[in-house]
Every structure is written in structure tokens, then in C-alpha cells.
């Protein structure tokens, strides 16, 4: 999952980036409103953490412009202005959630997971696909009750496919969402990880759609 963090305070930005990366997300960071707007407008993010008080362009304006341009990724506002009128202004501008500063990283992560899950249409933190069961909160994966050990890259790949199960996900889309901007998009790393994942799962849940990409089977049980 690829997250954009737009926060002007360098230290806080660094901490958020580190915390999110530790949780298995791919993170792009921006320090002002204009750059943040440009990135959110051009790159496919699974969620955005957006500070309201930003230089160059404030967070509310950035968000309004994204929504006007049809950019519908879930956005979590980060605000030190914790009056409800400020929060309502953010939500009305198109934000999906808010976190007031100072915050616990765990709370940001929990809310972010819920946001991404909701955006993908999953009500529960547990996603089930046939014999496969993934708890997005604890990153626990089991097949028929047997717990699997996955690397962070493998978990991210599986998580993305599960969040979009039943849909064809192209290789390019996977690269865009699982790696940051600097990743070499021509490498065949994705094929390698899909192969490893299939082997670890032991069940044939990931289909290859020739010429288009991959599809996780949409099976409840």
C-alpha cells in the first residue's frame, strides 16, 4: 500500500514516514501544499495523510482541488486545530478522517488501516478469501488455520490483492502501489514475489490474466 504524507514539519514528516514504513507501507513524503497536491494529483496512492497548516497551499485547498479533479483516495487530515469547526471544514472539503496532534502513531496506523479497508469496501479488519484469512491489524495470515510467515513485501502484495479481490490488478498498478517513486519499474520483481506468494499460500487464489495482470479470487469461504 502506497501512502502520501504531506506534513511541513520535517521531524514529524520523518517520524510518520518511518512509522508507516515500519508498518509495511510504501511512503512518499512531501513538505508543502503545492508539491503534495501535485503528487496526489499524479500518483496513485492508497491513502494520504494531509496536514491542514501547510506552506504554499493549505491542506483544505489541496484536498478540495484533489476532489474537484476526481481524486478519490481516502484522506486523513492531520490537524493541530482541534476545534470541531476545523474538523468539520476538513471533512466537508472531502477528508475521510482526522487525527488531532499530538497523536499516537498506533492511532494513526489503526485509523489508516480502517480507512483503506473502508475504501476497498471491507467492513472488518479481517479479510477472508476461501481458506485464506488475513488480519490487517496484526498482519497475521493463515491458510486453513495454519499461520504463514510472509516477508513485508509479500504481505504488502497479498494485502493489496486482497483489498482489490475480484478485480484485475495490473503489474504497473502493483508497482505503483507497492513501491515508491524511485523504484525501477521495468524489473521483474513483481513476478518473482507473486511466484513466492503462490508457493507459500499453497492454494491457487491468485490468477494470472494474460496480458492484463493478476486477480485475487473473490471467494468468501
Amino acid at each position: 500500500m502506497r501512502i502520501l504524507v504531506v506534513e511541513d514539519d520535517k521531524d514529524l514528516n520523518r517520524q510518520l514516514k518511518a512509522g508507516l514504513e515500519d508498518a509495511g507501507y510504501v511512503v512518499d513524503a512531501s513538505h508543502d501544499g503545492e508539491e503534495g497536491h501535485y503528487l496526489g494529483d499524479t500518483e496513485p496512492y492508497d491513502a494520504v495523510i494531509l496536514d491542514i497548516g501547510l506552506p504554499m497551499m493549505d491542506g483544505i485547498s489541496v484536498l478540495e482541488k484533489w476532489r474537484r479533479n476526481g481524486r478519490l483516495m481516502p484522506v486523513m487530515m492531520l490537524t493541530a486545530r482541534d476545534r470541531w469547526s476545523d474538523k468539520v471544514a476538513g471533512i466537508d472539503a472531502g477528508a475521510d478522517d482526522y487525527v488531532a496532534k499530538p497523536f499516537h502513531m498506533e492511532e494513526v496506523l489503526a485509523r489508516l488501516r480502517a480507512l483503506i479497508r473502508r475504501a476497498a469496501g471491507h467492513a472488518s479488519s479481517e479479510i477472508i478469501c476461501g481458506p485464506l484469512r488475513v488480519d490487517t491489524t496484526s498482519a497475521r495470515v493463515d491458510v486453513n488455520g495454519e499461520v504463514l510467515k510472509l516477508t513485508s513485501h509479500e504481505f504488502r502484495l497479498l494485502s493489496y490483492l486482497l483489498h482489490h479481490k475480484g478485480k484485475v490488478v495490473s503489474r504497473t498498478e502493483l508497482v505503483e502501489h507497492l513501491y515508491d517513486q524511485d523504484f525501477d519499474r521495468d524489473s521483474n520483481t513483481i513476478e518473482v514475489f507473486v511466484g513466492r506468494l503462490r508457493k507459500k499460500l499453497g492454494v491457487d487464489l491468485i490468477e494470472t490474466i494474460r496480458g492484463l495482470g493478476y486477480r485475487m479470487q473473490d471467494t468468501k469461504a
Partner: protein
Amino acid sequence: MPEAARQSPSFWSLLFRRLSFRVVGISTLLVALALLAVSYIIVDLYRSAIERRFDALLSAHLFSLVAGTNVSATNQLVGVPQIGDQRYRQPNTGWVWDVVPASKTVTGRLASTFLAGELIAPSTAKVPFDAAFERRYDLKDQEGRNLRVLETEVQLGADTVIARYRVAGNLAEVADETAQFFRQLFGFLSVVGLLMIAINAAAIILGLRPLVRARDELGKVRAGEADSLRGPFPLEIDPLANEINALIENNKRIVDRARVQVGDLAHALKTPLAVITNEARTEKTSAGKTILAQAGMMQGQIDHYLQRARIAAQTGTVAYRTEVKPVLEKMCRVFTKLNPDKNFEFTAPSNRVWFAGEAQDLEEIIGNLLENAAKWAKQDIKIKVSEPSLKNGKLQLFEFFIEDDGPGIPADKRDEAITRGKRLDETKPGTGLGLSIVAELVREYHGQLNLGESAHGGLKVVVALPMVPQ
């Protein structure tokens, strides 16, 4: 001064503080003084005219007296003067005459029938004769009546034959006539005076009506029914109304500026605090723990004092009115978006209810309560605005309640729940400030906050806030 006396001024002090009473009182006093002066002048003029007429009458009588008398060959006074006035021939009228010798060569004395004794004249040194050889003086007769005497001396033949002629009229008639005139004048002027006072009072009260209207308009602003004084006012009051409107606008600007500055301060403090807190969490040393604990305390203090600053900025401000239903609808929409797994149900009366306060404060109260309800509810959160019926002194209150189907708060813990920074359950995220912020805001608006048990098993929060009178 005793507390009670300071709080309730007496009827008279209140009366004297009334501008209309003062102006009507002063104008009444001036009218009374003017009428007194006018009546004095008129009565004095009237008395002078009466006296002149009286003197002219005496003069005519004196002329008749002189014409009706003479001296005989032996220089004895003789004659029967025919003065046309009957009063000289009636007793106790005070109208008398006499003719006495003024030289030794003349003898005898003539006098009206009822002149008892003599008229004691003052010396000529005291009251000299005028150019017409007449002199006029007042004296009292034997019955104590005030008489006006006109006297002359006439030479009757030879140089040494001189007689003194005197007619006296009763001055009581002048006094009676003057008094009667004064009574009539007093009655007339009293009616005129009362009419003038009434006209003055009406004019003053009518003239002051724009001030009363300005006061009523200001009352509407205070009550939140209007956001400025609405004219038109007379040209004299217009600048005052404009100044008050400018003051109201300035007040709003100050509050807005204070709020923005508080927000800026929050931003300036909380971002570095977030950095410190996050950094300290990664440090597992005792120093890290200390920093984390101290940062937590700083956060609590910042939250508390920022809230105090916000409330202080808005306390006593004027001209705010907020329709309740749209705010509740907006907050429900926001919370439905934030909590798609929860069911928010909202009902409001058909008539429009206006909160006598700021939209931001109402949002703050509802936002904190809904956030709390959403945190604890299993599924359902109900919000209902009731028909306004409560009173708190002069304040009319409307009531709304928010209830959920969560675990609720035991009765003995409810007071603790609205205490600042108290968190009854540490398993859910939060600062513990939500309910205390609500309690503080409600208190600032002289409203009421009650925690109870919902019919659905969870918490029921009932909030009563002042409304714009309907």
C-alpha cells in the same frame, strides 16, 4: 453599601435615573416657574391699571368736591358738594371726603356724613404736593381700613383764603378686584400649565422613542435575534447606532482574531509536541519515559488552556444566533462519514429553534458528545431536539439529547466523567477532555448538562442551551 441595596436600587433612584423622568421633570419645573413669573407680571400690571383707574376716580371726585364748595363772605366754608358716587353717602364703605381750612382766615369744616373723626394726613415734608398741587397718600381709618387719599389745596378768593380738599377711597376694593383677577388668572394659567406639561411630556416621550427603539434593537442583538441595530433612526441617534454596530462588528472581529491566534498557537505548540512525543516513544530508556510523561502533561495543559482561551474569547460577546437543526444535520453527516459502521438517527421539531450563541460552540458541544457516543456505541446513536419549554431565570432554553447503545456510565461515576482530563476507560483513545469541554461550554452559556441512562442501555446526555426567544 449592603449587597441587597447594591443589587436592587430603590424606586426613586431608578426613577431619577430615567432620562424621560428627568427631562419631563425639568420641563415641568421650568413651565411652572415661567407661569409663576408671567402670572406675577400680569397681576402686577393689572393692579397698576386698577390703581390708576382708582386714582383717576378719586381725582374726578376731588374735582366735584372742589366745584361743590366755597367760602361765605365771612370766609366760612359752605356748600353741598354733589359727588355722584353713592359710597360717600353710605356707612362703612371707607369712601369719605372732607374740606378743612388751610389758612387761618378760613373757618368751618365740611365732611361726608359717615366720616368719623379726622383723616390724619402725613406732613407735606413726608408727602409733598406735586406740580398740580395734589398729593396722594395711604392711611388707615379708625376702623383699620386702608384708604387712598387724594388731597389738594385751593385758594378761594383772596390770597389768604385757602381750603384743603380731601377725598378718600377704600383700597380694599383694589385688593379685592386684584385678588379676584388673580384667582381667575391662576385657574386659567393652571389649565394652560397642565396642558403645556402634558404636551411637553408627550413631545419628550415621543422624542425619546427612537432611543427606546435603539435599546430594544440592542436587546435583540444581545438576545441573538439580530446581528446589528436596524434603523432608520433620527439623524441625532444615527451616529450612535452606527458606532454601536461598529462596536459589535469589532467585537466579532476580535473574537475571530483571538480564535485564529489560538488556532495558530495550537498549531505552533502541538506540532513540536507531536515530534517530541513520537521521538520519546522510540526511546525505551528512562529519559524517554520521563520525556513522554512530561510531554503528556504539557499536552494536557495546552489543551486545557487553549480551551480556556477560546471560551474567554467568546464570553460576553454579542450578536450570535445559530439555527440548531442545520448544525445537528451537518454533525450527523460528518459522523456518519467518520463512522460508517454506526447508525446516527436524528429528529428535530418542525419549528425552527435558534441557539443564542455561536455556531462554532454548538458544533464543539455536539461534536464532542457525538465523538464520545460514536466511540462507545455498539451500533445506534440517537439525537433528538425537543420542543423548547425550559426556563432558567430569564433565559429560555431548548433541549437536545444524545443517547447510545454502548455500556453507559454508572450513576456514581457520572460526575467524574465531566471532570477535566478524567478518563473512565483507558482502552479507547482520547484525551478525557471531551465531556469536560462540553460541561465548560454549557456552563458558560448558563445551560444545563445531565448524564443519565439511555433506554437503549447506554449513556444519555441531555443538554439545555439558551435559545433565541420565539
